[in-house]
């Protein structure tokens, strides 16, 4: 297994009374509440954490969100380029720049090819459908984003892999008459593609394409269902069973010296859920496309947001739901191994540790323990579901 560090570089420094007064802490909170000197310090700290992870044998995930307290990495390709420059051996996953918001996938392919060169072939390219406040901040139509996402992915892939261009693209959402990027990527034919989704038809498409499927805080059952859809789609298409390296999971994580410390500091991560996702109804449940029309009555009557989120934010409960790994190193290793077994095999665990109110020093201590005391326990594990035929038979029997 591999461990990854994902930090969204949040900004937990806006006064509580301001956050309580605001209808949304994303998209519409004025940036006068964002002190660029504090941001500069946070950038330095997180880049130091990335250097540490590089030394320790952990990999690095970057992403982007816009116009809110939850994430200061708004320009993902810029940040990922910096990470490429300050690290030497870590794999770097951009998960990712927002392809459903940005107008030109060819430019995105250029940026990724550049980062792949800068890192000498250490880049992994991740795609996210995005939505909610990101559509507002980027003035991107929230309707048809799944179709737009796939067309963008197709155009990026063709841009990265075509070596006898220029070629022309006249699609539903994007047009570009003269595609021919220099440089082309360092890795041939291109860096590996990942996507973050729990939408089962999308997971199936990832399976047919062989992309890495990552779940974000999905817990045991949702993650298992997603990975099952991936495997089933490959089997039905007559493709070979996927290796565990095709599966990834992002969870909150804190590795302490003791279980008590792991849970106590892990609890500080919950700020991500209790504060940083506060969003106005027009950016969430009433955003067009947020729910299928036939699901609107249930969503609107219950006041549900566009995506169900954990409501019980006690760290131990999050651990029980498979959404957080926390405790001493042996405990965390046991939690991850159990998760791997229950979801049917997985290679990549993405740890969201420097989140919420967790400090720089606390994050570095957790990464050190994760690399020194957890990762060795996750190496060379026996296969979980090696026999795909038997797996399918079991699933079908269970369905009957």
């Amino acid at each position: 297994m591999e461990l990854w560090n994902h930090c969204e570089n949040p900004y937990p420094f806006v006064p509580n009374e301001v956050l309580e007064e605001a209808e949304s802490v994303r998209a519409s909170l004025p940036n006068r509440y964002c002190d660029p000197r504090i941001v500069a310090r946070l950038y330095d700290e997180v880049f130091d954490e990335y250097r540490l992870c590089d030394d320790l044998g952990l990999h690095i995930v970057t992403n982007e969100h816009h116009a809110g307290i939850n994430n200061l990495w708004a320009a993902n390709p810029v940040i990922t380029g910096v990470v490429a420059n300050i690290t030497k051996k870590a794999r770097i996953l951009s998960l990712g720049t927002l392809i459903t918001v940005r107008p030109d996938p060819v430019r995105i392919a250029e940026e990724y090819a550049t980062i792949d060169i800068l890192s000498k072939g250490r880049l992994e390219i991740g795609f996210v459908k995005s939505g909610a406040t990101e559509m507002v901040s980027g003035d991107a139509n929230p309707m048809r984003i799944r179709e737009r996402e796939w067309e963008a992915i197709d155009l990026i892939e063709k841009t990265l892999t075509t070596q006898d261009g220029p070629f022309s693209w006249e699609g539903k959402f994007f047009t570009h008459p003269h595609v021919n990027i220099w440089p082309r990527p360092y890795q041939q034919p291109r860096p590996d593609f990942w996507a973050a989704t729990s939408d089962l038809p999308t997971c199936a498409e990832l399976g047919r394409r062989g992309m890495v499927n990552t779940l974000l805080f999905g817990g045991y059952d949702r993650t298992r269902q997603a990975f099952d859809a991936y495997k089933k789609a490959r089997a039905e298409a007559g493709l070979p069973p996927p290796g565990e390296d095709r599966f990834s999971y992002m969870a909150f994580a804190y590795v302490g010296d003791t279980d008590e410390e792991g849970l106590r500091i892990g609890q500080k991560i919950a700020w991500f859920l209790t504060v940083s996702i506060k969003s106005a109804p027009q950016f969430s449940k009433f955003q067009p496309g947020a729910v299928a029309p036939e699901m609107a009555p249930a969503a609107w009557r219950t006041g549900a947001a566009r995506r169900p989120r954990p409501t019980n934010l006690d760290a131990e409960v999050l651990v029980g739901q498979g959404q957080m790994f926390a405790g001493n190193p042996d405990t965390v290793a046991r939690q991850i191994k159990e998760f791997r077994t229950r979801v049917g095999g997985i290679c990549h665990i993405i740890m969201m540790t420097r989140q919420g109110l967790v400090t720089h020093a606390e994050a570095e201590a957790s990464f050190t323990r994760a690399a020194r005391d957890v990762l060795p326990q996750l190496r060379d594990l026996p296969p979980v579901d090696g026999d795909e035929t038997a797996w399918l038979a079991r699933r079908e029997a269970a369905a009957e």
Partner: protein
Amino acid sequence: MTSGRLQIGPAELEVLRRPSTRPGAPTLLLLHGINNISPAAPFLDLLAAHGEVVAPSHPGFGKSPGPGDRDTMYDLVHLYRGVLDALPAEKVTLIGFSFGGWIAAELAAGGHPKLARLVLVDSFGIKLGGREERDFPHLFNTNPAELTRRAWHDPANCPPGSYGIGWHTAIGDAMSDEEMVVLARNWDSLCLYAWRPHLYNPQLGHWLHRIDVPTLVLWGAGDRIVTPDYGRAYAGLIPAAQFEAIEAAGHHPELERPQAFVDAVVRFLGKDAGKAASP
């Protein structure tokens, strides 16, 4: 009120129809706003006394199937040219409300031989202010409570079963699941057509001078979504247009003041074409 379907090429439209009891009454083609027109809306009965009412639901609205790839204003304009072709009447009065007013203005700027008169009611569609001035709030990015505050003279005037801008604030036990599904379809479909540029065509203002039929630009005096000043400027760009405001009404005068709305339309229909032109 009868309902039926209308096939225009590949598009199938749900249509409300109300035949007129008066022989020779004009045909009135209604293009709805952000929501399809409720069969129970009181203004329909009042209007039907003066003309044959035909009110399609745009693709993706009401119970009309979705638009597929025909999901732009360009497609809607061609679709409604097809509807005009398909109507048996030789002459048709086009009445566009809010978002439907934008469609009607686009269609009229392009011209159609059957088009006799045009009524624009609190219409979107053109850009008037500077690049840092919004002519109206972004419907999808504004809190529904604020939209409601701006859209109505008094939200209590909205008749049962009808929904206007800010409809989200009416969600409650009195709203059926079927109504919610339709409202969600309407909201999604409006977004397809109108997210960006938001509810206007930057070029349309250049071509409103091509509208060559008598035009009534009718506005709720209390509309704070699209203000009466915007309506007056809209009318000023159309050669044979007159502007009229309805007091004690917001963005949906046909819902808040149905009798006053119909009276204004009927007065306009009663004028002959030559006298109608009074900018």
